């Protein structure tokens, strides 16, 4: 009973630090030990998703420990002080839960999706493995093989994945972030020591390096109460940020040709651009985001549907990356069309956009309407909602970035799109990787 009162006191204390979001249904709290908590209520169904996000990922790694965040993610299912290997998953499953985890460049996240009556269980179990993970050599030996199989499946036997992996290798210097693959180089995966994993865990798995996000049919007070109860006693790691300043280092004019056993050619190019975090003016980041949308639909229309010189094309920009990032254009040429030919058409299209921005006026208007609608559609999945909240918090952005997104995009003009394209799409500086298929036999 006494414990209970203490928790309530803490709870009130912490609420004093919470940042309200006006009339929205998002609550934010930070515990004394630095654990951030974000709760968004959504009462459409009696379920919730609880995600614990750690601010650590591939961008924090270097040789010979590339992929170690991902390896640690796997080990998190291999037992802790209170749960045997595999038991975490079995208990969640037995309680009707759906659980998994994912690792990316700037974060590692764990989640449980369950009936609302299981909220305390999910938070309690996740808290348990923030501190008491077992590190068993036997488990590491087996799980290392699982991760190598995962790498074979996702990268080694997938020609296009190899192209993207190589594009990052040549676009970023190995001394900085975003060079190495998230899953790691195979030789690194083969050689992690248990002590490396333990060190990684002890450094980064601390409350002041984590965000708990809960979305669903919950009472925010309960989330905060359980989080305080189960995470509240953990100490912060004061040295954490010293380890983490390792920005990406841009390389230009690099290229690589991959001759692989494949049937289809593939070409991917990259331009260096700032993200919302690294940009000198936020508007520019939204303009780049809009440029990606406009180019994607413009190139699809011109090159796939009209000229039919590519069978697929995609434009990508990572608005929320922690460090300077890439603006990418990739395509699969149609039969018998040369990469040079397509590249020329892309340049023409970009030049036209820069010189005659009024031509994209209608496209821009439609894109804005689509983004507004997409914002609504994204609310349909609690996992999408929690993904954005956790990801923003993990890279150091405020939740209001999510709510302002549509407004910010609505402010972008055709001239802005032209200017940003002119500033960043410099074809003399681009990096590219081309896949020349050698057939399968």
């Amino acid at each position: 009973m006494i414990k209970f009162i203490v928790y309530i006191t803490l709870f009130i204390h912490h609420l004093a630090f919470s940042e309200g979001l006006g009339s929205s249904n998002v609550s934010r709290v930070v515990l004394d030990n630095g654990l951030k908590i974000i709760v968004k209520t959504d009462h459409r169904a009696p379920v919730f998703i609880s995600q614990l996000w750690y601010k650590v990922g591939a961008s924090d790694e270097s040789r010979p420990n590339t992929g170690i965040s991902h390896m640690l993610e796997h080990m998190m299912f291999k037992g802790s002080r209170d749960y045997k290997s595999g038991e975490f998953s079995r208990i969640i499953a037995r309680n009707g839960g759906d659980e998994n985890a994912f690792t990316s460049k700037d974060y590692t996240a764990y989640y449980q999706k369950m009936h609302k009556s299981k909220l305390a269980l999910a938070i309690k179990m996740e808290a348990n493995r923030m501190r008491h993970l077992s590190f068993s050599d036997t488990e590491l030996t087996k799980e290392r093989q699982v991760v190598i199989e995962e790498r074979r499946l996702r990268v080694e036997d997938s020609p296009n994945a190899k192209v993207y992996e190589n594009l990052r290798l040549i676009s970023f210097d190995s001394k900085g972030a975003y060079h190495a693959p998230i899953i790691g180089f195979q030789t690194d995966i083969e050689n992690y020591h248990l002590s490396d994993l333990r060190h990684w865990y002890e450094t980064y798995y601390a409350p002041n390096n984590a965000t708990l996000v809960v979305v669903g049919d919950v009472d925010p007070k309960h989330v905060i109460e359980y989080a305080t109860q189960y995470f509240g006693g953990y100490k912060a790691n004061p040295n954490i940020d010293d380890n983490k300043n390792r920005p990406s280092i841009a390389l230009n004019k690099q290229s690589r040709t991959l001759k692989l056993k494949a049937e289809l050619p593939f070409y991917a190019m990259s331009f260096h651009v700032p993200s919302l975090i690294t940009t000198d003016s936020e508007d520019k980041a939204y303009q780049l985001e809009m440029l990606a949308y406009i180019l994607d639909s413009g190139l699809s229309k011109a090159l796939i549907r009209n000229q039919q010189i590519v069978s697929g094309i995609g434009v990508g920009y990572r608005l929320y990356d922690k460090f300077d990032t890439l603006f990418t254009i990739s395509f699969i040429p149609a039969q018998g069309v040369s990469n040079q030919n397509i590249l020329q058409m892309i340049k023409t299209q970009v030049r036209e956009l820069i010189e005659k921005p009024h031509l994209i006026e209608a496209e821009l208007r439609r894109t804005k309407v689509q983004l507004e609608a997409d914002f609504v559609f994204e609310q349909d999945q609690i996992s999408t909602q929690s993904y954005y909240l956790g990801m923003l918090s993990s890279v150091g952005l405020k939740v209001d970035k999510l709510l302002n997104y549509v407004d910010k995009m609505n402010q972008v003009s055709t001239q802005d799109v032209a200017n940003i394209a002119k500033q960043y799409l410099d074809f003399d500086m681009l990096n590219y990787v081309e896949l020349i298929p050698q057939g399968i036999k």
Partner: protein
Amino acid sequence: MKFLIILLLLTTQVQAKLSIMHWTTPEGAKVLFAQTQGLPMLDIALNFDAASSKDGAKFGLATLTNSLLGTASKYHSQEQIIELFESVGAQFSTHSLKDMAIVSLRTLTRQDNLQVALSILTEVVTQPVFKHKYLNREKKQTLHSIKAIKQSPASIASLAFDKAVFAGHPYEHTKIGTEASLANISTLDLAQHYQTYYVAKNLTIALVGDISKTKAKQIARQISHGLNSGKKAQSNPSVERLKKSQNIHIEFPSKQTHLLIGQTGINRAHPDYYSLYLGNHIFGGSGLTSILSDEIREQKGLAYSVVSYFTKMKSNGFFLVKLQTKNNQVNQAQKIAIKTLKNFLNYPINNQQLQDGKANIIGGFTLETASNASILTYLSIIGFYDLSFDYLSGFTDKVKNISAKDIQMAFIRLIDMNKLIILSVGQVQQENHNEYK
């Protein structure tokens, strides 16, 4: 837009028990509707019994017909159609399987948006024009897809398995066709396929979203009204059970071998449906906690992904165990997978496994209908496969009373260990050869 967002933040607070309303339009289309509140959006799926099992001899015909919907209509060109959908923020897509040919729309329910989206959806589905230039372009894209399959060991394995397990049945061939079959398909074929199968009596309309029943009725009526009434497609024959075991190996220069072990499965009306569903969930259908995953991944570290599943269609689908492992480990993985399946047939699962499996399905069942998107899928399946309208509400009760013996007997009745298809795609020969050196 600010207004809309704030509105949204205030209104996702409504919860109602899922209730499925259903009726038939005057032209004969079956309609299933679930009203959900909290988000100003509507999802529509038009499910025609018009997919690749209705190809006849022209493999790829059904998929092409479906993918040309939206390329041209009586009044609009493809670019106009795309722009009209985009201009109201609607998402239009087509998707064709072996049974179901699907046309779907996701739109805001704000009157201006809804009206434009619905009218253009209705037009592309009820008044399509099949033009040579779009057919030719789509064929070229399909030829590319055929090449993409050739460089993917997973796709090669999956298509080869279909071929073996569905031999002689309309499910056998690949839904996108072959280079040779595509060459013989004309716009006239597409128009005929459309005339025969894209008719009201062959259609299940599923609607999920924040609209009234009156509005739903009006929408279904509008779509159905433009279609011929027609007749329901004839059922495919049953898939015959395998007569003997088959070992198939396809050499492929990959680092992993894809291993598929399986057999003829069940349709959705199968008397053992729930026992097999629960049994498979426990055996290989529940991710890391399944028996198969424990044996192959957790205990041995042989694979990243190992699963088993039933494909459930109008005619019998298949039962399949699927994994990928480093080439020289495939024999070991195969032995363990087969032994695990054999044990599953020979011995009833223990009570803990049974209770855990049930608890996972029953305790997690609310997750199945927690989004409009997943409710839409269920409504489509219930309508298209003539399942009972209380399928969802009755599901957990059906699972609750199944015993370990029920599961074992159902698997014994279905699975014949002497007639398995064992199919591998990878560099088995070379690697084995190296081992002997």
